[in-house]
Structure formats: C-alpha cells, structure tokens
C-alpha cells in the first residue's frame, strides 16, 4: 500500500506561535508511514472571523482552504477547533469539498484512519488531559486522545476533574468577556493543579495558550504541551521544551 499523502494544516496559531507542535506532527506522521506535505499557500481557517460575526472574511478563507488542500488523501490538523471549523462550517460557507470532508484532527486521523493507538511514544511525566470543546462536541473525537496517551510509555495519566468544562478561551470571547473568561480559567486551573500533574496536555494550542497563559502568570510551574509533541517524543529523541 502506498504511503498516504497527507497535507498538514498547521493552523495559523500553531504555525506562528507553536512551530514545535507542527514539527512534531511531521515527525510523528512520518514515523507512522505517511508522506507529509505542507502546502505553503495555506493560512487560516477563518474561525475567529466566523465566530465573531465576520462571515465574508471566513467565506474567502474557506474557499482558499478548499483550493490549497485539494487532492490530498487526508488533511491533518493539530487542532479540534480548526478541524471542526473546516469539516463542519466550511461546507456551509463554500459548499462541500473533498478537502473539507477529508480533514481530520490529529488523534482521529491516527486512530480512525491509520488504525493505531500505540504510536511508540515515550514521555516519562505525570500528565493530565483537557478535552477541548470543539474536539469533544463538534468533531466527537471522544476518548481517542486518551487511548493514545494511555499507550505512551512512562506516562502517568492523571484524571482531570470536570474535564469537559470549557476553559473559557472561546476565541474573541476571552477579550470581549475577559472577566467571565478569567473566572472559567480560574476553575480550570484549580482542577489542573489538584491533579498534581507536571504537564497539561490538549489537542488544541488555542486552549493551551489560554490555560498556559494563566498557569504561567501564577508561576504554577505546570507546563502545557500539545498532544502531538507527547506522541512524537521517543526514548531516542525525547521531548524537549523549545525556546
């Protein structure tokens, strides 16, 4: 069977602020036998525009996405939020396209398409996992990220209380309703700290930027690490914090 030709949709946030996550996706998917490409014309899924009420900007970004990612066997995004935007909202904006239907969030792609749960990862830390709202409710990824994490050697998985409650990011919600957002973040951080985990893991850098921003401000010492970076980490080449 030829290696599936996978288009990496890095998402604008990861591309700009968390390049180590996108590099981890490349490393992980290549290790799992995929032929990974990063089409350079990609930019943003338009979710922030769409969710804030700027439909026209979102519409042209959906059109751009359909063009850029046309022809790949699968398109993988390290984000349930942007993945959900593409698969569930882009068709409404631009009409159906193979590029939309073939877009997967990372854990979905690994478990459902590649049929793997043990990706040969090694990550000797106590980790707690936050299932982000859009991966949970829009894409319905369910327990797939947890199944992947449970198979990681050395990883001590701590259950996060009230895990499925929103962290309070919500895109522009975090600035339009900054006080409410912070109250939601406060409860999320308290739950994270109660687990005793060293690392908070999620499949969305947007939520991690929000929760991590709070954890950093309070000097809690808890790190936020994207699921892709944990899964890419091996004994030979362990995860290292990037500057």
């Amino acid at each position: 069977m030829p290696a599936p030709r996978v288009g990496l949709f890095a998402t604008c946030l990861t591309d700009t602020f968390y390049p180590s996550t996108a590099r981890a996706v490349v490393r992980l998917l290549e290790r799992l036998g995929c032929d990974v490409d990063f089409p350079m014309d990609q930019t943003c899924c338009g979710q922030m525009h769409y969710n804030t009420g700027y439909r026209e900007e979102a519409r042209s970004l959906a059109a751009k996405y359909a063009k850029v990612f046309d022809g790949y066997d699968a398109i993988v995004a390290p984000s349930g939020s942007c993945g959900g935007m593409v698969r569930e909202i882009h068709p409404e904006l631009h009409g159906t396209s193979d590029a939309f239907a073939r877009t997967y969030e990372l854990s979905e792609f690994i478990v459902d398409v590649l049929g793997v749960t043990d990706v040969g990862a090694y990550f000797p830390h106590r980790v707690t996992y936050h299932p982000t709202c859009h991966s949970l409710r829009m894409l319905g990824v369910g327990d797939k990220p947890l199944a992947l994490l449970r198979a990681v050697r050395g990883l001590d998985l701590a259950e996060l209380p009230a895990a499925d409650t929103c962290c309070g990011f919500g895109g522009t919600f975090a600035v339009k309703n900054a006080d409410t957002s912070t109250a939601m973040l406060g409860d999320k951080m308290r739950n994270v700290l109660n687990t005793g985990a060293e690392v908070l893991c999620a499949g969305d850098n947007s939520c991690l930027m929000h929760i991590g921003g709070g954890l950093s401000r309070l000097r809690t010492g808890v790190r936020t690490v994207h699921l892709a970076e944990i899964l890419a980490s091996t004994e030979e080449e362990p995860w290292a914090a990037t500057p």
Partner: protein
Amino acid sequence: MGSNPVTWLGSPVFPKAAKAALADTQLRRNLRKATHTIRDKRTRVVSELPDWEELRRAGEAIKDDVLSNLDTYLERIEAAVTARGGVVHWARDAREANEIVLRLAREAGTDEVVKVKSMATAEIGLNEALEAGGIRAIETDLAELIVQLGHDRPSHILVPAIHRNRSEIKEIFQREMAEKPVSDEPRELAEAARRHLRRKFLSAKVAVSGANFGVADTGSIVVVESEGNGRMCLTLPEVLITVMGIEKLVPTWQDLEVFLQLLPRSSTAERMNPYTSVWTGVTPGDGPQQFHLVLLDNGRTDALADRVGRQALRCIRCSACLNVCPVYERTGGQAYGSVYPGPIGAILSPQLVNDMHDKQAASLPYASSLCGACYEVCPVRINIPEVLVHLRAEAVEAKGRTPESVGMAALGWLFADARRYENAQKVGSLARHLAPSGRISSLPWPGSKWTSTRDVPTPPAESFRTWWRRNRG
C-alpha cells in the same frame, strides 16, 4: 434605548453586568452548587432512556412542524378553545397583552390575582402593569414568591431564586411575611410559604397562568409543575386567564407524549413532574367558570421570519442549557438583563427585541464561549452555537465600521496571501526581543484585555512555515 419590553430597563451590556456578578462570591457559590447538582442528576435520568436521542429528534420535528404551519395551528386552537366555552384574545405585543389581562381582571371585580409561574407573563412585565392598574399580582410558585418578596429579579427560568441560599430566603420571609419563619430549615421555610399562600388561594377570584403546551386539536392547555400551587390557582378561582406565547403549541394530544418525557428530565431531572394540569375550555360546575386564552406574539413572528434564528422558538423552557453553561454558572442569570437568561436567553432575547442597535441586546450573542454544551443537552436540539454566531453577524452589521471590524478586515487581508502572512510573522517574531523571559505579561490595548490575567507566549524566532521552507521546501 431600553424601551423594549423583553430586556430590563437600564440593564448594562453583558460584560459589565457579568463583572459585577463575578465579584459576588456568595452568588458564585450558590450557583455552582445548584447547577452542578441538577446537571449531574439530569445526566443520570437521561441516561436511563435508551431512546433519548430519538425523543429529541421527535421533539425537534414536532416543534418544527408547528413553526412551519403556525397560522393553521393557531386558528385550530382558537376554534377548539371557543367551541369548549373559552374566549381567545390576540396580543401583538406586551402592551396589548397586559391591557387585555388588566381589563379582564377589572371586569371580574377584583383587586388581586393569584399567579401560576409563567415565563410569558414575566416577559411582558404583567405584574408591574397590573400594579400600575391597581391590581396586586401574587406569585404562588415558591421561587417566584421569593423573588417577588425580595423585590428582586429572577435569575433562572426554572428556579428563579437559584441565586439565593436558604439563609437569604429566611431573611426575606422574616422581613415580608406576617407569620415569620423561625429558622432556615427547608421544611420551616416551605411551611411559612404555605401559610402565606393558603389565604391567597382561598380568597382569589382570578388566576393568571402561562402555558407549557397548548394542544391545537383539542384546545387543551397544559401546565407542569412541582409544587401543586399552580393547580390550586387553576382550580379554585372563578376566572382563569392564560397568557401563552404563540410558539407553545403542539398539534395533537398524542404529541404531549414526547414532551412530557423530554421536559421533566431536562428541567428538574425528574422522571415525571409531580403535577400535570390540563384544562380544556370551561366545564360547568368544575373549576374556573370563565377561561380566557391570550395568544402572545411580542416579537415571535419576527423571529419566525429568520431561517436560522427561528429554531429558538422550539424552546420548551426546560433550562437544561442554563445548568450546563459555564458562562451562566459564573455570572448568574441577572447579568443577561432579561427574564430569559443563559444560552437560550442569549439567542431568544435579541430576537424578541429585534433591534441590534440596542447595545444590551447586541451584547448577548457574545455571552458565550461557544463550547457547545448547551446544544448537547437541549431536548429539542436547538443549535444554540449556530444561532449565536448568526446573531453576532447581525450585530456586526448593525455596528458598521469599528476598530474591531477594521482589525478583522486587516487580518483577512493578511491571511488572503501566504507570503504577506509570512512577512508579518517575521515582523511579529521581533517581539521576542522585548520579552527575554519567554512570556509577555503586558500588551497594549486591546491585547491588555488578555494580559490582565494571562501571559502570552513570545513568538518564536522562526515560524513553522519558515522552518519548512528552510528544511523541506
């Protein structure tokens, strides 16, 4: 403006009202405890039904049929009610509805009416209108009574006094009741309310109710409740006036089967509500001998004209969305500035107001992080996030050119071209020189709204796409 009848006069925009609520630690404790208790219980009782998803779809389908054929069903219920000896009145807005009720109460020669808990009458401010006309309205639902005696506003659809704990309730009762409760034991408080209300039930000549459902075929009106106080109002007085939103119809008696399963489990997390009262017109010698049905529009046909927004009219007022909403849990209901709080309020109130130039109404669709928990629990599958985003687009349009719209357009321009975007990344990455610690703790406005409580990661020296170009390109 604030002159619309749906939102409370003088209510601030949501972020401002929320800020005040968030500072009230007692309120937050009360809300947290109450919402978590009821939400956990809801999950348990819903999981008992293997066909819950089918029931939701059935509820959605029935309501959509009603909304698509509302004219037919309304004429049908009018005919059925009239045939059974009732009188039907049509009210375009709050003012008309209030005038009808006031006139009917006056005609009955009373200066006091007892009330069954009703969202429709709260929406139109009936109590205040009656008061202005010299007629006292007595709320008989325990939670509504607490709100009324506390000179307070409701904060939840089902549990209007959810923001109060029992010691606060004891204080209100001690201040307002003739026979005062001696402790804050729930039994003692309930007994005090019972003594207080019994006299009212026995003397009242006129009762005013809302309706959970109106059956178009038979003209039957249905009210479900937990305490039985509603049933007292529906049986003892001589005159019964029901104010019903025109969307509350179901086509046939059989359709109730679906909703009498969906509603109690979604709202009080009970398998069956304790009291289900049904009345059809007038029955000689039994119950009220005069029955008036006021069919209330008040913005509903405007909402119906909106293809995306109209699904809000499926709402059966169960309040499951409030109980799971992380925003509602922190801010409470009064921050929404209307009798309809929480996620459903955030989509229903702006539609009933139907004026996106009203700043308070326009702030409501943004009172959500779009986490989707409300849609997941809604028994009639209202896609609340979809309507929120739809109404945000209307708000943006109404506002015209703002710093935000300029910023969004600029970002759109940047994202339209990958090279342009990459150059901007390179410029942005220079910011890391300003924050050698690897985190930025203070940004200029509007970023300051983020950094008031959260750090921002410094942009890395090299974006992913630049790395890819260097290594793989």
